[in-house]
């Protein structure tokens, strides 16, 4: 059996030809699910639309480590020329703010990436948890007498305590660095059963400057939890604070992104085959229309291929997962859409971006993306279990800056800015040399919670097509007074922090309602819930309408919280996969987890049982599967899920 592949377009075990599960997308959710399934002995096929920038991710480099990736401190490649981001010239999307409008094709409708490991590979991997009140927000708002007409707040079909063990597992797998003891810890975080696996990140200058302002104003900033190694961990090297972080893949695998953590584990298990540059275009239903029989995809030669498996897990990210459901139904109503909620309740984060220009150089070109953050503007009480009595629900505030000179120069090239500069006798060259928007820039970003609204939705554009000839996603989105009000409430407080930090100038990035939100936090559309009339997926991520289709990405989110969502996506996907392999007791897969990839690397013998679970329960599940008629087993699953 071959565990690693020299075949172009394939990672993992090329010898596999029959699959228990097929996962669409190798991002945070898909990789987490692949890890749990392969560790339990399931044979898994992953289809990834993007390219692979981790050559040899399925093998060891000779010293037990991961071979180097193709990522680098290269602004042209990563930010200017679309090395990883979904390319609007071949895969456009359209946007409008209401049903009455004609949608326009727009180059950036919340585009994520196309690559093995997904968007988290190039994110700043800020991995906070959601808090307890996030999972029952509708009840909390109702109890507080706060009503938001047009918003569709709902409680999640699970509570924080149920997800907590999976949060812990996600943090261990990803190697999250953070502080969990007072006075350093985030006072608004909910209780945790285990410490962060790694100590906090070393502070960077701009983070210290802004945190200083926040402390002077009486707030409580904390070290931002990030899946970035602060010591050697999991066979990966420590971060060196190279500065090219958010928007960049890590050249030394110090970021605990899905590729080098969960996906890596799946690939070295021998139970996984990943085909990249494999663009899924359609799910195929069987005659009963209760089961997905397989999928159709286009490979890198432009040929249409088919793949089948017993179960299918959608993890293509919220917009693309909803789109696939719509594309797979000849009537375009969408498979799994008996509720009519498919594609609806789309969520982003309304980013309120406060900008400070400081007299001194702040060296944004050094450090991680974000080393300090604060939760004081989330609008909740300490401990994360209740709403703040007076303050609205905003979000985490991240203290950062720009590390990219070309991108910064492009921003200061906005025609208005150039016209002003000319008026005061300032040349473009002088703007670049003095570099106020690069070297002297500090940025506070509040990730404000967006109210869910049924009218904010994804459907298929009637006119615009991608290069496959398929209708592209059309986003209809308009912000609710809920989040606009919170943004207006916290803006003056953000200016106070900038002033207290010593800034010379402060202002905000303009809010432009006529353009797409552009946030990379893309959630909702396949909302989970207990009532099949009000939701698309059940509390385990299984489609209410289908017996063998699951969603393991941000699509299942009921509300968006005010925190970066990736850790929650991973925790939910781990839980969904755990429920697939161990329906009676999902948490069983978390027990007995004693060895990671480090242990594997030592003897270089893939041993999938060592990685996540006690061998016996996994084997028992498999035996049960083999001995049982297929349909019968699905009914059992459906029953237990219900």
């Amino acid at each position: 059996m071959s565990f690693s592949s020299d075949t172009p377009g394939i990672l993992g075990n090329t010898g596999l030809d029959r699959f228990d599960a097929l996962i669409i997308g190798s991002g945070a959710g898909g990789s987490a699910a692949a890890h749990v399934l392969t560790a339990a002995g399931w044979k898994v096929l992953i289809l990834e639309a993007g390219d692979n920038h981790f050559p040899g991710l399925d093998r060891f480099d000779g010293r037990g480590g991961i071979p180097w990736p193709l990522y680098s401190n290269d602004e042209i490649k990563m930010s200017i020329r679309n090395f990883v981001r979904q390319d609007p010239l071949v895969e456009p999307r359209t946007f409008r703010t209401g049903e009455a409008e004609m949608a326009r094709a727009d180059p950036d409708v919340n585009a994520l990436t196309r690559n093995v490991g997904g968007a988290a590979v190039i994110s700043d991997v800020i991995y906070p948890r959601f808090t307890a009140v996030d999972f029952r927000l509708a009840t909390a708002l109702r109890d507080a007498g706060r009503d938001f007409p047009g918003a569709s707040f709902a409680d999640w079909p699970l509570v924080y305590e149920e997800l907590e063990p999976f949060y812990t597992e996600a943090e261990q797998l990803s190697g999250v660095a953070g502080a969990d003891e007072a006075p350093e810890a985030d006072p608004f975080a909910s209780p945790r059963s285990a410490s962060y696996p790694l100590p906090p990140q070393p502070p960077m200058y701009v983070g210290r400057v802004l945190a200083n302002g926040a402390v002077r104003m009486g707030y409580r900033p904390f070290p931002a939890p990030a899946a970035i190694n602060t010591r050697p961990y999991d066979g990966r090297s420590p971060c060196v604070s190279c500065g090219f972080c958010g928007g960049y893949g890590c050249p030394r695998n110090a970021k605990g992104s899905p590729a080098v953590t969960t996906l890596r584990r799946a690939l070295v298990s021998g139970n996984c085959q990943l085909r990249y540059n494999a663009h899924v275009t359609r799910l195929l239903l069987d005659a009963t229309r209760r089961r997905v029989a397989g999928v159709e995809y286009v490979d890198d030669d432009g040929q249409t291929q088919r793949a089948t498996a017993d179960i299918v897990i959608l993890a293509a990210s919220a917009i693309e997962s909803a789109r696939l459901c719509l594309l797979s139904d000849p009537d375009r109503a969408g498979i799994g859409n008996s509720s009519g909620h498919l594609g609806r309740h789309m969520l982003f984060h309304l980013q309120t971006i406060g900008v400070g220009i400081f007299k001194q150089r702040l060296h944004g070109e050094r450090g991680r993306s974000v080393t300090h953050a604060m939760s004081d503007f989330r609008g909740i009480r300490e401990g994360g279990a209740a709403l703040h009595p007076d303050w609205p629900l905003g979000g985490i505030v991240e203290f950062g800056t720009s590390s990219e000179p070309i991108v910064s120069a492009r921003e200061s090239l906005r025609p208005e800015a150039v016209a002003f500069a000319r008026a005061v006798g300032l040349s473009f060259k002088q703007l670049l040399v003095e570099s106020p928007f690069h070297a002297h820039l500090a940025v506070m970003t509040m990730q404000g919670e967006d109210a869910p609204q049924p009218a904010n939705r994804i459907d298929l554009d009637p006119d615009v097509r991608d290069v496959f000839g398929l209708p592209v996603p059309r986003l209809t989105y308009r912000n609710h007074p809920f989040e606009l009000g919170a943004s207006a409430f916290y803006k003056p407080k953000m200016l106070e922090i900038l002033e207290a930090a010593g800034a010379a100038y402060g202002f905000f990035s303009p809010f432009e309602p006529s353009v797409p939100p552009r946030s990379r936090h893309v959630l909702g559309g396949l909302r989970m819930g207990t009532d099949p009339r009000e939701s698309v997926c059940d509390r385990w991520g299984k489609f209410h309408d289908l017996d063998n289709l699951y969603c393991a990405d941000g699509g299942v989110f009921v509300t968006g919280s005010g925190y970066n969502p990736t850790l929650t996506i991973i925790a939910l996907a781990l839980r969904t996969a755990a429920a697939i392999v161990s329906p009676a007791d999902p948490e069983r897969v978390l027990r007995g987890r004693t060895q990671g990839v480090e242990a594997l690397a030592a003897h270089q013998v893939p041993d999938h049982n060592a990685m996540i679970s006690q061998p016996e329960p996994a084997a028992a599940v498999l035996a049960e599967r083999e001995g049982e008629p297929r349909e019968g087993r699905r009914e059992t699953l459906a029953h237990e899920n219900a």
Partner: protein
Amino acid sequence: MSENEDQTKAISFLLRSFGRRQFLALSVAAVGAEFAHRFSWVAGVHAPLAMPPPTGAQGFLTAEEIAVLGAATAVIIPTDDRPGAREIGVVDYIQSLLSFLPGSDANCDRLVTAADVTATIHKLASADPACIGGGDVDGNGAVDGHDVAAATSAVFHARPVFAGGPFSGRQPQPHFPTGSLACQSCHGVSDGVPRRITERPGSALAENFPSNAFREHLPLPRLRAMSWKIRILGADAVPEAVGNPLATEMLETDLRRKYRHGLAALDAASRERFGRSFAELDPADQSSVLRQADPAFVQLLTLHTVEGMLCAPEYGGNRDRLGWQLIGFDGDSQPLGYTIYDPAVPGHYRERPDNPNSGPNPDEDCRGFSEAMERFLSILSSTSLVAPGGPFPEPYCLDVPP
């Protein structure tokens, strides 16, 4: 025998065995002749090309166009007491961008060298589809005689669309064994200051700087290759883009045509107004012509000028890293970075005293900006174009004495 001599022999042999008749059958006699002429130039060049080609007519833009382009980018970033677009080599960046063709790495070794001309001829002979797009240099969907000429041209501008990774070799490995990558016993940084280690000549560990992977050309998968054809050649080159309005609307598409038309229009306008070519005008008149030119083209020029100034030098611009020096930017910092892992110190990280992660450089002050910049920032921060804040009354600098 050098690599180049090998390639010369291989290509001569191929040309002989391939035969002029077959070239004629493909209606590319002229291409063959041009190729033979150009190859004499290639053979004298080290492969891969270490430096940008001399600014001139090789590549997509002609010598006349290069002259206009050089003058126009020098209006955007003029030379004063500091280097401008000319010294920084912005023209070479743009010429490389326009001369790039998706399949020019015909042998898929991630370098564009004379060997790719050989490989293109091979593919022409054998109709070998090989790697994605490789050999179909001009992107017309077929490997044919035109690709030989196109590959030859591409060799002159051997610049990647996507440079390889992870390291450029400009920075050393960090010091401490547990913090280092491949070079477990290298000691490039002991007191926080990086230095080149050469005390063990001949040993594998003598060099603590990694090799330069930025010179590699990463292959483009099918969809990215389509996108780059749209960028360089326009939407017409990719029939699959027919349902996408962005393929014709976006600024950075159809670049060859836009540059050809845009530069010609600049020259025509200056001849009409001043009776001389754009390149011969004095800077004030050039500036005046540029202000009245098509704003979309000027925007494109400005964007590419900035890219050519601040890109990694492997993309053809930022000559001698003059662009980075101009704005005080250190460039790519891996694998050294700014914090050096050391379990022996509190916090497990050492800072570089010259370039600390958590504070200002030792020689930095709190003086702020020029008078003009202060005026500019005051207006900008109080205007409604950006949601207003304003100047603050008592700015100060943390950790920097006033």
